[in-house]
């Protein structure tokens, strides 16, 4: 018997409720199956796409784009965010610029990216980069600004110079917040990869959804949405686990 007070019990119950509701309504014939496919139909579609290898290929294509774009964004945001947070000159130089670009919706860059880089992988990866880099950087900058100055001054009185202070005091202090920043902005990366694939791609979960739309295959659209959601959830849980393991002191 699952215990009712386990933290996951209610969450699982919520998901089960929606699934039941969906199964009930779609099987009752109240709604046209073209609009609301049954769970069984979605499951069949999943089996089909799984056995043909399409599901895995699509998922891998999307994951690879997200991974490349986000790794680039996260990797650059860390040093630049730390530099902005710890140096007023750099901050004053870059913050207004980033604050401005941050509010330009990333999908609006798609036409430019296509003109510049064509329809290959690069524009999709860059779109994810553009859509997450400025948020990542500014959030890391904020985290740096809130490092208690006693911690920095203690290091200085112990003979610490600027670079060791950044790597050995600032970086470990902000680590939990950086992981949380990445976790939050990862969601935008997933939004963007789907948007990019809707526009132009040969494979990917977003591409599959837009093809399904063309042939009115709502079961495949449902499947795509569910798979995207599940992968996102797994990544989110992964970040949480990483944070728990590497930053036990912050809990």
């Amino acid at each position, binding site marked *: 018997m699952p215990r009712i007070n386990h933290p996951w019990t209610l969450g699982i119950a919520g998901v089960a409720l929606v699934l039941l509701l969906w199964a009930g309504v779609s099987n009752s014939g109240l709604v046209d199956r073209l609009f609301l496919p049954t769970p069984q139909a979605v499951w069949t579609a999943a089996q089909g796409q799984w056995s043909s290898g399409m599901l895995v290929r699509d998922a891998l294509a999307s994951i690879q784009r997200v991974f490349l774009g986000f790794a680039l964004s996260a990797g650059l945001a860390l040093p630049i965010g730390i530099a902005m947070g710890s140096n007023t000159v750099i901050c004053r130089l870059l913050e207004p610029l980033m604050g401005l670009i941050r509010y330009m919706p990333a999908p609006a860059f798609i036409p430019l990216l296509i003109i510049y880089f064509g329809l290959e992988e690069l524009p999709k990866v860059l779109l994810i980069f553009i859509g997450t880099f400025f948020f990542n950087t500014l959030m890391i900058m904020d985290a740096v600004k809130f490092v208690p100055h*006693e911690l920095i*001054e*203690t290091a200085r009185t112990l*003979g610490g110079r600027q670079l060791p202070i950044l790597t050995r005091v600032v970086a470990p202090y902000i680590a939990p917040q950086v992981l949380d920043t990445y976790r939050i902005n990862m969601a935008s990366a997933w939004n963007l990869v789907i948007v990019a694939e809707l526009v132009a791609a040969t494979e990917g979960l977003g591409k599959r959804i837009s093809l399904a739309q063309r042939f009115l295959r709502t079961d495949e659209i449902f499947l795509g949405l569910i798979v995207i959601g599940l992968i996102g959830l797994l990544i989110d849980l992964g970040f949480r686990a990483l944070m728990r393991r590497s930053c036990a002191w912050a809990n």
Partner: protein
Amino acid sequence: MHLQVENVSKRFGHGTAAKLVLDQISFDLHSGEFLALVGSSGSGKSTLMRLIAGLERPSTGSIRIDGQPVRGPGSDRGMVFQKYSLYPWLTAAQNVAFGMSLQGRPRLEIRERTAYFLEVVGLADAARRLPRELSGGMQQRVAIARALAAEPRVLLLDEPFGALDIQIRETMQEFLHRLWSQTGLAALLITHDLEEALLLANRVHILAPSPGRIVRSVVVDHDRSAMGQLRVSPAFLALREELASCLRSLEPASGR
């Protein structure tokens, strides 16, 4: 070691908004001495400490150590802050080792000295604990061990026990006294607790507020072997009362 503070003034802000926080402070501190500065809140005690630590520059005047002007922070002046300043992600031992590893000392030496100083502050058993698993008093002892391990020539203590409750405070005062008499270090203690100053220091300077300036200096040379008795000895209480009334007379608008 000879710390010379000469005519040091500190002003914050510019023009009409300028505020004089310290006015012509002068004193000396030699190896083996324990000096305390006592003043009410806002009399510029922490500011003075930060000037000596090199975290801030005096507006006028000079601060020298063995004749060399202080140009910035350095490991020759170990500082213990008012608020807890341990690195929360490091264990007690790693905190103690932190300064030594910044100095690039050999691993083995760091390990030995860490164990030694944890022993000195009585926390050998807590070596692997994180700061949040330590009580306030233990945390400040780790902070003191960390400062000592970096081999400072003078220990700067800015209200190190200010956040502790009274019983732990007394134990910590006895601990600090033992530590100082064993190491023969030069120590500068800042506090608003007159009893603490008189118990620990050979010399006590009284700071008047707004702007902070030294208005009285006393040499304190009673027998400290039994601190509990000293706290209630008539001579001690008389000196304490005399200085307390001096401090009271310095409060602005003393009618409140």
